[in-house]
C-alpha cells in the first residue's frame, strides 16, 4: 500500500449558526488523484480552505497530518511552503500583467531588492512547457482564453514546487476539448508522481480521472469509493451525494388553488454584459401561475440569477431578447422601476452586497423600494415609515431591539427577513426569491419557508431559485432545472427527486 500523503482527521468547522464541517475524514495516498464530490454547500470548498490555511489553525478542530507530521497552518503561505497549492474556481490572475508576472506574483525571482526579470521569464517558460502551453510568458493574461489561463494557474502552482495540487472546479468554465486536455494533463502529472485533489460537479470527468472518490454531504464524509479501472457509473456516485431523506424540515403547504398563468417568458436570451457574444441565458421558456411556488434548480453559474435579474427590469445583461407576458399581455419592462410598478420583486441572493444598506436602520431598508407610498409629494411621512417597519417586524418575527437598529448588526436570518419585508412592502404579485435561505440557520430557514407558503396562499406567484435540492423539492409545486443558461428539465412535484434533478443537469452537461 502506498504511503498516505495527507490525512485530515475529524475536522469540525463552525460558522455562526451553521456547522459547515462535521467530523470530516479524508485520506489521500501519495501519487493518486482523489476526487471530492458533493452538492453545493456540502462543505467541499470549506474543507479545502481549512487545508490550505485560509481558515487558520484554531478556527476549526481536528488534525491535519501531512507527509507524516501534524501541521498547523495559519496562512496560505504556510501550506504553500509544504507544497500544498490550491487553484480556486475563480481564477486569481491579473488581466493586465504578463503570464510571467502573474506566475511569480508573491513568489518573485531574483534578490530581495530587485526582481530578476530574465530569470522570471526563463523560469516561466520552463513551467509553461511542462503544462504544454505554447505561449510566450510575456503575453498578457487578458489576451489568452480561459482554458489557457487555467493552465497558467497550474504552471504557477508548479513554480511553487507543489507536491499536492488541489483543483477546485477546474473545468467549470472550460469547453469540452480544453477540459479533456486539462484532465489528461492531470493524468500525466500523476505518472510523474504528483498527488492531486480535484473538486468537481462533472461526474463523468471525475469518473475518468480519479483513483478514489470521496463523497461529502451536509458537512460530513459519507464514503470513499475506489475507482481502479476509471469506469464507475455516475449513478453510483449520485446515490452517495443525495442519499438523504427529506424530513419535516419544511412546513406543510396549505391547500391552495393554483390559478391562471401570471407571468410567462418565451425564448428569453440574455448576453453577458462584458464578454461579447456570450449567452448567459439561452432561449428560456417558463411560466408561473398565481399561488404557485416554482423552484429553479441548478448548479452555481447555471444562469438562474441572470435570468431572474434580466426579467426584473433588465437589471442584468445585454441584448435581452424574448417576450415577457404578464397576465397574458406582452410587456416590456425597461427599468427596475417599471418592474416594481408591474408588481415584480426580485429578492437578491447577495443580501449584504446587493440587498441591504447595512449602515442604515431597519426602517429605512424596509421602505426603500416603495418610499413613494409613504411620502406626500417627496416628503417622507416618518411616522408612517415607523409604523410600516414595525408592522413587518411583527409579521415576520424579526428579532431586533427596535426598527431603528442598523441592519448590519443583525444576524443573517434576521437580515434576510428585513430583505423580505422590504419586497413584501413593495406589494408585488410575483416574487423572485434568489437563494432565500443562503447562510442562515435551520430555525430561521423554517420561518422563511412559512413566509413563502403564506405568500403563495395569498395568491402571489413565487419563483424560488435554490441550489439546495431538498429545499427545492420540499417547497416547490413545480421545478425547472437549469444548466448552462438553458432549461434542461421541468418536473412536477410528484415526479421530482434529487436523482432526477441531478441527472437532468449531468446529462445536459455532456451534450446529450
Amino acid at each position, binding site marked *: 500500500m502506498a504511503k498516505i500523503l495527507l490525512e485530515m482527521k475529524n475536522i469540525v468547522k463552525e460558522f455562526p449558526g451553521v456547522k459547515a464541517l462535521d467530523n470530516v475524514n479524508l485520506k489521500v495516498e501519495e501519487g493518486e488523484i482523489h476526487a471530492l464530490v458533493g452538492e453545493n454547500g456540502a462543505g467541499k470548498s470549506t474543507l479545502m480552505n481549512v487545508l490550505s490555511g485560509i481558515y487558520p489553525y484554531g478556527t476549526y478542530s481536528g488534525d491535519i497530518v501531512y507527509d507524516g507530521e501534524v501541521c498547523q497552518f495559519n496562512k496560505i503561505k504556510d501550506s504553500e511552503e509544504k507544497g500544498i497549492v490550491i487553484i480556486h474556481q475563480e481564477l486569481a490572475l491579473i488581466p493586465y500583467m504578463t503570464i510571467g508576472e502573474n506566475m511569480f506574483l508573491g513568489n518573485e525571482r531574483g534578490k530581495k531588492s530587485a526582481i530578476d526579470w530574465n530569470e522570471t521569464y526563463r523560469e516561466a517558460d520552463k513551467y509553461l512547457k511542462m503544462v504544454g502551453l505554447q505561449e510566450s510568458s510575456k503575453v498578457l493574461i487578458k489576451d489568452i482564453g480561459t482554458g489557457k489561463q487555467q493552465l497558467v494557474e497550474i504552471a504557477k502552482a508548479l513554480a511553487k514546487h507543489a507536491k499536492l495540487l488541489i483543483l477546485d472546479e477546474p473545468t467549470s468554465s472550460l469547453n469540452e476539448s480544453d477540459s479533456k486536455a486539462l484532465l489528461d494533463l492531470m493524468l500525466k502529472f500523476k505518472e510523474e508522481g504528483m498527488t492531486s485533489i480535484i473538486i468537481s460537479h462533472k461526474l463523468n470527468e471525475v469518473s475518468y480521472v480519479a483513483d478514489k472518490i470521496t463523497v461529502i454531504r451536509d458537512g460530513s464524509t459519507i464514503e470513499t469509493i475506489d475507482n481502479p479501472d476509471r469506469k464507475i457509473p455516475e449513478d453510483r456516485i449520485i446515490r452517495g451525494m443525495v442519499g438523504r431523506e427529506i424530513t419535516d424540515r419544511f412546513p406543510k403547504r396549505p391547500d391552495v388553488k393554483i390559478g391562471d398563468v401570471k407571468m410567462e417568458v418565451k425564448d428569453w436570451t440574455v448576453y453577458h454584459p462584458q464578454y461579447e457574444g456570450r449567452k448567459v441565458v439561452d432561449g428560456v421558456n417558463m411560466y408561473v401561475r398565481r399561488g404557485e411556488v416554482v423552484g429553479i434548480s441548478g448548479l452555481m453559474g447555471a444562469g438562474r440569477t441572470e435570468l431572474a435579474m434580466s426579467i*426584473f*427590469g433588465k*437589471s442584468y445583461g445585454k441584448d435581452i431578447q424574448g417576450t415577457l407576458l404578464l397576465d397574458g399581455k406582452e410587456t416590456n419592462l425597461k*427599468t*427596475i*422601476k417599471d*418592474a*416594481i410598478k408591474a408588481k415584480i420583486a*426580485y429578492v*437578491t441572493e447577495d443580501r449584504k*452586497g*446587493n*440587498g*441591504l*444598506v*447595512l*449602515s*442604515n436602520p431597519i426602517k*429605512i431598508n424596509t421602505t*426603500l*423600494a416603495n*418610499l*413613494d407610498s409613504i*411620502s406626500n409629494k*417627496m*416628503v*417622507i411621512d*416618518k*411616522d408612517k415609515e*415607523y409604523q410600516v417597519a414595525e408592522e413587518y417586524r411583527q409579521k415576520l418575527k424579526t428579532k431586533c431591539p427596535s426598527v431603528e437598529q442598523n441592519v*448590519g*448588526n443583525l444576524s443573517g436570518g434576521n437580515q434576510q427577513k428585513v430583505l423580505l419585508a*422590504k419586497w413584501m412592502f413593495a406589494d408585488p404579485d410575483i416574487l423572485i426569491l434568489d437563494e432565500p435561505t443562503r447562510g442562515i440557520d435551520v430555525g430561521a430557514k423554517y420561518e422563511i419557508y412559512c413566509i413563502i407558503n403564506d405568500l403563495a396562499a395569498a395568491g402571489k406567484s413565487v419563483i424560488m431559485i435554490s441550489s439546495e435540492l431538498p429545499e427545492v423539492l420540499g417547497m416547490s409545486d413545480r421545478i425547472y432545472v437549469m444548466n448552462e443558461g438553458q432549461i434542461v428539465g421541468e418536473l412536477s412535484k410528484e415526479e421530482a427527486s434529487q436523482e432526477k434533478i441531478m441527472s437532468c443537469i449531468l446529462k445536459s452537461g455532456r451534450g446529450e
Partner: protein
Amino acid sequence: MKKATNIIRKNTMLIILVLVFLFFTITTGGMMFTSLQFNALITQNSYVYILATGMLMCMLTGGNIDLACGSFVCFVGAVGAKCMVTDGMSTPVAILIMLGIGIVYGCILGFLIAYLNIPPWIATLAGFLAFRGWGTAILSANSSTGSIAPIPKDFLAIFSGKLFETAPGILNIPCLLVGIIASAIVVAINITGRNAKLKKGYAADSVAAMSVKSVLTVAVIMLFAYKLAYAGGIPTTLVWVTVIVLIYTFITSKTTIGRYFYTIGGNAEATRLSGVDTKKIMFLAYLNMAVLTVISTFLVVARFQAANSTAGTNYEMDAISACVVGGVSAYGGSGSVFGMIVGATLIGVINLGMSLMGIDANWQKVVKGVVLLGAVVFEIVNNKNKSTK
C-alpha cells in the same frame, strides 16, 4: 452615566467647538468674544457654509468630492464682473447669466460623472485647472490690475452689508427681535414635536432633556443676536446661509430624494435594485454643487467688491474640511447638514482665533491640517468602538 457618555459621544464636535472658542477667548484676552469678531466669523465664512452644503450632497453619495468649486468661484466671478462692470449689463441680467453658466456646467459635470462614470476627482480636477486659467484670462483681458471693480451698488446690497443697518456700538433692535422670534420658533418646535411624539406613543425626550436642549439653543441664538446687534445688524450673508441651510436640512432629513443620497452612499447596488435611478441622483449631486457654487460666488464677489484672479483659492479644500471635520463620512452614506455647520464653524473659529493671536499664516495651515486628520481619525476610531459594542 451611560446616558451622559452617550450625549458626549454624539456631540463631541460641538463640545470641542465650545472649548476651542473658550480657549481663543482666553488667549486673545477676550478679543474673540467681541461683537466685531462674531460678525467676522459669519461674513468671512459664509461661502464655506454654502460650498460645504453642496459638497455634503456629493460626499453622501459615496465620498465623492468636487475639486473645481474654488476655481469655478473665480471664473463665474470674472464673468459676472465683466458683464456688470465692463459690459454695463444690469445686475439681474448678470445674476441670471452667472446662474445659467452654473446650470450648464453642472449638467456637463453631472453627465460626465453619472453617465460616463468618470471618477469625480478626475472630472473636477480638469475644472480646477481650467477655470482658474479661464477666469484669470478674462480678468486680465478686461483690466490692467487683474481684478474687475467696482461692483455695482445694487449687487452689493443683495449679497453683502447688513439688514436694517445701524452704526456699530448701538443696539440694533430688529436684529435682537429676529433673535427673539427665532428662539421662540425653536422652543415651539421642540415642544410641539415632543407632544406629537407622545401622542402617537413613540419614545420622546424627557421634559428635562428637552428643556436643557431648548435653553442651550436659545442661549446660542440670543448670544449671536445680541453680539450682532452691536456690530450693526444682521449680516445679509447670514440670511442667505440660513435659508440654504434650512432648505438642505429639510431635503436631507425629510424627502425621498434626500434619503436616496444616503442609501446610494451606503449601498449603491441595493439602491439601484430598489428601483431608484442612481445615475440621476449622482447627476443631481453635481448639478446642485455647481448651482450652490454660483450662489457662493455672489457672496464672495460682494464681500471683496471685486472679482479677483485669486478669489476662491483653496475653497474646495475648505468645503471638504468642513464636511469631514463635521462628521460626514469620507466613504459616503452618513453625515448631516448640522454636523457640517459645526465643522465649518470649528474651522472658522480656529482661523479667526489664530489670526487674532497673530500666528504666522504658514503655521495656521499646519494646525488646520492636524485638526482635519485628527477629526477623521477620531471619527473612524469612534465608529469602530461603536460597532464592536
